[in-house]
């Protein structure tokens, strides 16, 4: 999905992609209940309040689940990372060594144009 398409269908996500281009990971934060969530919505899926702001995440987390996809031209690692702020986000782990990307491994965010994308996306690297 091109950025133009993403913005056309998900206009509320614009600040997220602008920050990603600058290497910053934004998380939606609810002013009503104080909780973050993932994937971003323009309301809070926990308390269903509308007082959302974007807050920059520290960008570190722990692998909740991961797998090495071997049935591909270039094997790749899909993972769910539990951010230190709480939410679990789907991502790729960028490392040539899958043993560094097991459950419990600490990881740090980076930004890259993955999968032919024309926008920078958060991916994670083992610390």
């Amino acid at each position: 999905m091109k950025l133009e398409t993403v913005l056309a269908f998900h206009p509320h996500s614009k600040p997220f992609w602008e920050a990603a281009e600058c290497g910053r990971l934004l998380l939606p934060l609810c002013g009503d209940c104080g909780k973050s969530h993932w994937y971003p919505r323009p309301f809070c899926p926990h308390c269903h309040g509308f007082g959302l702001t974007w807050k920059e995440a520290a960008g570190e987390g722990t692998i909740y689940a991961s797998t090495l996809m071997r049935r591909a031209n270039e094997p790749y690692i899909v993972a769910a990372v539990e951010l230190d702020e709480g939410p679990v986000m789907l991502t790729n782990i960028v490392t040539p060594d899958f043993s560094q990307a097991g459950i419990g491994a600490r990881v740090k965010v980076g930004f890259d144009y993955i999968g032919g994308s024309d926008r920078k996306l958060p991916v994670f690297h083992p610390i």
Partner: protein
Amino acid sequence: MSIKRKAFVVGAFEHPTRYAPDKSTAQLHAECAFGALADAGLSIKDVDGFFGARDAPGENASWLVDYLNLNLTHIDATDTGGCSYLIHVAHAAQALAAGKCQVALISLAGRPRSQGMATGTAPRAIEPDRPDGPWEAPYRNVIVTQYGMMAARHMHQYGTTPEQLAWVRVAASTHAQYNEHAMYRDVLTVEDVINSPLISDPLRRLDCCVISDGGGALVLTNESIARSLNVPMIPVLGCGETIYTQKGGWPDYVTTGAVVSGPIAFAEAGVSHQDIKYASVYDNFTIMVLAQLEDLGFCAKGEGGRFVQDGNLISGAGTLPWNTDGGGLCNNHPQNRGGVTKVIEAVRQLRGTAHPKVQVPGCDIALACGPGNVIGSGHGHATVILGRE
């Protein structure tokens, strides 16, 4: 209002094909519908309720209803992925109980094998308006990677082993040897499974289900019509359904929607786990069988590996005869949606018409359940409990 004993499964048909390049999807639907209606001793002109999901040609049941030239008073196009047809059983029972229709037809068909679909391993284009799309699609989380993560997490949390997962495939293959229509009929060992190539760690090729063309259909009706037919009386006893979410970013990759649908179905049926003589549990991947059995309460959470090992799911050998047609792992997964075949084998068991080598003696209560779409995202789940009079 409970739907217990308000509706009866009177027709069931599994299309014998597993590869149908010479047939249209609509034709497969028609053949399944005619098959199930003939099984019931009813005519397609008797159908006044239709239940179909997005596998209908044109991705909308309307075209299929027009193609079959049905005269309907009730329509339900609920789509929750592969468990749609289990939910359709529940919804058909509700419609029959409410008198909205008299003869309900549920149909599934498709041709992913003919179309060369790499169901589990190739990224699929997702709808641009899907709310999670921009944050999920670029990472190529295909179906097998999501279930690979699920298996990895289950192993991490509970100590589940690859050998325990393999027992699920061994049980399926043990049953499939007796099914002349099954895609894979070779009896496998645990070693065969754990020596098959890794696809998405820790899942191996033989942890994954087949890709098959085909389909199936069910006919349900009310008690008075059912009693007028020359078929066994198979009442719907209880049903549960849900969409199980990612909890706003606090997902649980080892828990399925069966934790919701199972207790609802058991409560409505008024039966306990010991009453279930046979279970069809959707097996898109071996790990899903473990997780659903736990979530349904056949064993404690995390004990699924120990529950399935040593042949405990093999009919005649274990305590819970399961997927005696060979399931999705060995027999059939038409249109990548296993919901209808789960009900069909449960009906065979209740009628006493499963293969004699796998028929459960005195099978009077059976369970069929399954997920839809993909765990770890918003996924559907449905559980149906059927009886026999």
